[in-house]
């Protein structure tokens, strides 16, 4: 009698356990949402009150891919400390293969934060975002002010993961 009741119960509990584990560890599957430049500005404004780290990347940018795991790690360590990490891909929206590759990369990296694809002609995207080079990391304070614009625009002033780390730690503590 007991055994008949307990066996299905045990099965249900095991299934719930796996599901619970997955909800906690797997998190939601990373999405890549196209966003126009005007919407992007609104999105940034809506995050006021949080420290915001924007990682600008593309699948054709090898250093971007190499640095991405640090961004994922940063999110894990700081998301409960008032920091929101957002990735912004400047892959060519008109190249379906590139967009799919970007999606696959985000899934492989388990990038469990908002991931956007700039939905503009690629040259216009760079113009509107005033970008010369990627990877670029923009770090905004809680009032929405851009406090760190880390990029490779000057050969003699390159940035490292440590620069990102220090900037985020300082703003999170403010």
């Amino acid at each position, binding site marked *: 009698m007991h055994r008949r009741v307990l066996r299905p119960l045990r099965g249900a509990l095991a299934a719930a356990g796996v599901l619970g584990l997955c909800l906690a560890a797997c998190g939601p599957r990373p999405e890549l949402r196209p966003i126009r430049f005007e919407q992007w500005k609104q999105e940034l404004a809506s995050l006021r009150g949080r420290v915001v780290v924007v990682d600008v990347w593309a699948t*054709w*940018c*090898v*250093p971007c891919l190499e640095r991405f795991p640090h961004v994922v790690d940063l999110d894990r360590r700081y998301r409960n400390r008032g920091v929101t990490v957002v990735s912004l891909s400047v892959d*060519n929206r*008109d*190249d379906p*293969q*590139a967009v799919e*590759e970007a999606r696959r990369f985000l899934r492989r990296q388990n990038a469990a934060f908002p991931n956007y694809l700039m939905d503009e*002609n*690629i*040259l216009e995207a*760079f*113009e509107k975002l005033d970008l*010369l*080079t*990627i*990877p670029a990391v923009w770090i905004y304070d809680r009032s929405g002010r851009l406090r760190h614009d880390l990029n*490779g*625009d*000057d*050969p*003699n*002033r*390159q940035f*490292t993961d440590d620069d990102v780390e220090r900037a985020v730690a300082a703003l999170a503590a403010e």
Partner: protein
Amino acid sequence: MRFVAPLLLSAALFAGKYNTTVEIGMPAPGFRDLAGIDGKTYSLSDFKEDVVVLVFLANHCPWVKGGDKDLIRLVNDFHGKSIRVVGLGVNLRPDDLLPAMKEHAARVGYNFLYLHDPSQEAGRRYGATRTPEFFVLSKDRKIIYTGLLHNSPAQLRRDGSAQYTNGEPVHHYVRDAVRAVLAGKPAPVPETRAQGCTVEYSGR
């Protein structure tokens, strides 16, 4: 410190719209004894042609690969004119070093000199941060144009095809700048925003 101050000053004085280091009209920074894929070494002062077109390249970069055909065409189109096109590699990753440069040039049929600068100084002095990034130098070796080859850079896709980002190119910035130098005039468009892979400079 005595040697650092003028460098900082020049960086502050010379900055283009899309380049943090040089600006239009300034003397072209020199480079010396860079190894070419032909086994010889070259300095900027070796080139006696009326126009020098420098282009920073990187084999691994899909924007370079996507633009190779148009670059080769540029050289062909000015055949017989007093112009020298020089490719420069300054990346230090293995697939951007001389052996890989030789292989790439042979495979795609580069018809111009391709030099490598392991010190990366040439790139630093030109403020070259993307590949491809073009610099057109006048007869008196001033920078008269920096930026894109034309208004529709092409990126090599995963299936091996190249895709123009703005359809068929309409504004041929480098070509127009070369013609301007040959005619003794300023470039009609002196500066554009280069599009390509970021050059990786060693820490400083």
